[in-house]
């Protein structure tokens, strides 16, 4: 499941990209950092013998979705938020709780991993060939054909929903 060195480098890149994404003031920067993060994860997929998913990740996520994000950011001119940015007392409390919860989550997972039976020891990882799109496609269209169709309907619903937003807006301005 990948060389520790490769894993380490990739993990650091991913974490840093994520942190930068969250902390950037500029939304465009955030988007770009996210693209980096997605790309890193695509590499992880390749390491994990899932090249097809990796390609989907690059094309759909890093490509289509992130372009959509950038497009909206720039369309709205919302690179930076207007306003004071000064937090109220309620907000500070909110932030404190959020941070505490984040810490608790990390701590719990870490403790659980360390205390797990055979922690750190290599459980036998089965040898697994690099997944071919053909294999994946067979599973997808045999076992998961119904959910697949459902996702098609979901996408259609999303398209119609978005179209409705747009249409209503247009009619409103036309009047």
């Amino acid at each position, binding site marked *: 499941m990948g060389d520790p060195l490769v894993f380490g480098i990739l993990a650091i890149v991913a974490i840093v990209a994520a942190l930068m994404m969250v902390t950037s003031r500029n939304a465009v920067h955030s988007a770009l950092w996210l693209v980096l993060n997605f790309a890193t994860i695509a590499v992880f997929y390749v390491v994990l013998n899932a090249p097809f998913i990796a390609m989907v990740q690059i094309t759909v996520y890093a490509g289509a979705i992130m372009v959509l994000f950038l497009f909206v950011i720039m369309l709205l001119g919302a690179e930076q938020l207007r306003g004071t940015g000064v937090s109220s007392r309620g907000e500070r409390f*909110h932030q404190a*709780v*959020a941070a505490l*919860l984040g810490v*608790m*989550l990390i701590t*719990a*997972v870490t*403790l*659980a*991993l360390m*205390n*797990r039976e055979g922690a750190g020891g290599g459980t036998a990882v089965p040898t697994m060939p690099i997944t071919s799109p053909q294999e994946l496609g067979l599973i997808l269209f045999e076992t998961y054909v119904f959910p697949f169709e459902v996702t098609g309907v979901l996408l259609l619903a999303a398209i119609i929903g978005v179209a409705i937003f747009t249409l209503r807006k247009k009619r409103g301005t036309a009047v």
Partner: protein
Amino acid sequence: MNELFNLAPLILVFPIIGVLFNGLVGRRFVDHDRKTGERWSGWFATIMALSAFVVVVLLNLALHANHFHAETVMLWDWIVIPGQGLSIPWAMQIDTLSVAMMLVVTGVGSIIHIYSIGYMHGDPDYSRYFAYLNLFLFFMLILVAGNNYLVLFVGWEGVGLCSYLLIGFWHERLAKDGTMKNANAARKAMIANRVGDAAMILGIILTFWVFGSVEFNHVFEEAIHIFESHEEMVTLVSTNIEMAFSTALFAITVLFLIAATGKSAQLVLHVWLPDAMAGPTPASSLIHAATMVTSGIYLIVRSNVLYELSRALSVHSGTISSSDIVALVGASTALYAGLIAFTQYDIKKVLAYSTVSQLGFMIAAAGMGAYVAAMFHLITHAFFKALLFMGAGSVIHGMEHGHHEVAHGHHGHDDDGFDPQDMRYMGGLRKLMPVTFWTYLVGALALAGIFPFAGFWSKDEILAHANANQGEYGLFLVLFILLALAAVCTAFYMGRQLRMVFWGQPRHEAARHAHESSPIMTFPLVLLAVFGTVAGLFNLPKVLTLEFGWSLTLEHWLEHSIQTFELMEEGILAHVPHTPTSLIVEVAALSLGLALVSMGLAFYVYRDKPKTAADPDPTQKIPGLWSVFGRLPIDSFYMKLLVPWFNRFSAWLGFKFEWSFWHDFFHERVIRDTFVWFADLSANVLDAQGVDGIVNGLGSVTRWLADGIRVSQTGYARTYALSVFLGTVVLLIYFLWPYVMR
């Protein structure tokens, strides 16, 4: 069962149709066009009565075809309590006794209907009168046709109601002193009958308690069964109470006797009948002479088994039996009322006391066990007494018309105290009203018991019965003397009446101008006169042990309904056939002789007295007669002692108990004020503070809670996201807990 029996319900249907017609639309007919309206109203009612009569005749034929076996025509169930075995049906018992009564009721009733058409002519309430008359027929037929005591009681009360309505028919007419004479008479009848009816109810209840049924056949069978099994004690139905059978029987029969004294005007409840003459004369004739007042006799004759058993039991124990009491009451009434009749001037009141007296004869006969004789006298009496009343009605009618003419001749001569019913104003009507006179004469002779008129045969049979049993019971001698004296009285007061009304000189201008009534009134008189003459044929006695084809018809007819017993030495009852009555020549001769002498004496005494209306009556010289009987001792007793005390007690109940205590104190103070206090407490304290407090408190608490909780709903997406994240972390820690804490 002959199919003709199915017609039985029709005898009730026809009269009720007449009631509905005259009660609902008759008045419109009469008001619209007096002449045709009266014709419709009167003839409709009459045809209904005649139709009922025809049906009864058919039932009579049916009984013949059925070999005189009684049939019960079931109409429907009335009171049914399955658990207690109580089942009282509306059913009609068609047997020889009830059909005999029905024939009298509908036959005489129809004739009186016809008479009424003429008599009531011009009365503003013409149709109401006929509605009452048909209603009376309806209830009277229920009374005689019912197959149990309760249905009989329905009819009993119904005829009482009709009697009340007809006595008070002219309730708005006032007496000369301004009292409501007619209305008071009606109330008197109602109240006097209440006493008897209360006894009747108690008797019926006790009958059910003892025998477990009120149907005649069941009761009688059960009574005979108990008697023959020599049971000393009986257990009352549905209770644990034990009662001596003889006591129970005695109580039932005495209660029925009291009921009969109320309805049949016997001592001491007879006071209402003379006053009942305030009603229209045909109604008096039908109800208060021929039919209704005989229902007491019918009740006793119907219950003959109970009275016979009572007699048998008392022979056993040597005490007085209820039958003996019945006979004594009847005989005393016969003499007592006969004596009072001497002192009456009102032509109808004489007849009324005569009726009381003759009813006494019948009751006495029933008490002596001579049930057939009682029924025989009942039937003949129905004919000739109806005849006499209607004759009296005709006389009154004539007198009123005469007075009318006189008043028209002499203006300002209106009120001289004239009373069209007072015999002192009459006299010499023989020539002016010939048909009325001759028919009246027949009736009077029949009533007096003169051979060969109907009354002779029936009265003689009663006297013969009293005479024949003298040896067996010492009591019967007393009865015989009382009844013989009553018969003498009868002949005397009828002679007096005939002499005063039809012979001599008119004592008033009105009598001089009286004239004969219309044919519609005289025709029924003639018809009844024929019956009054020949009705004796119904039950001719055997003469010198020879039996003719006609003799003892009624005896043989009724023996299918009336049972007689003889107590054997071993204490067992034997059903014995009726002993055929022979004419006892000595008794017949004695009674006929006494009657003739008495009547002749009356004609002699009243030969030219009183000369004028103001003259005293010749019999006032007899010491004690007018001073005792003329003052109506029992009426006086009631009016002087009972009524004032009763009124005082009523006033106390009304003003003190009912108003002061019950209304002012109990209802106003106790109930109302308590209620108001409680309502005030409920409204102003419990509701306003208690209930409202709880409800408002709940509302406040909810609002306070909501105010607290709504703070959490900030509307910011981050708040909700934080909640979700919190949930996620908690769940994760929950799942990982075993590993985390290892």
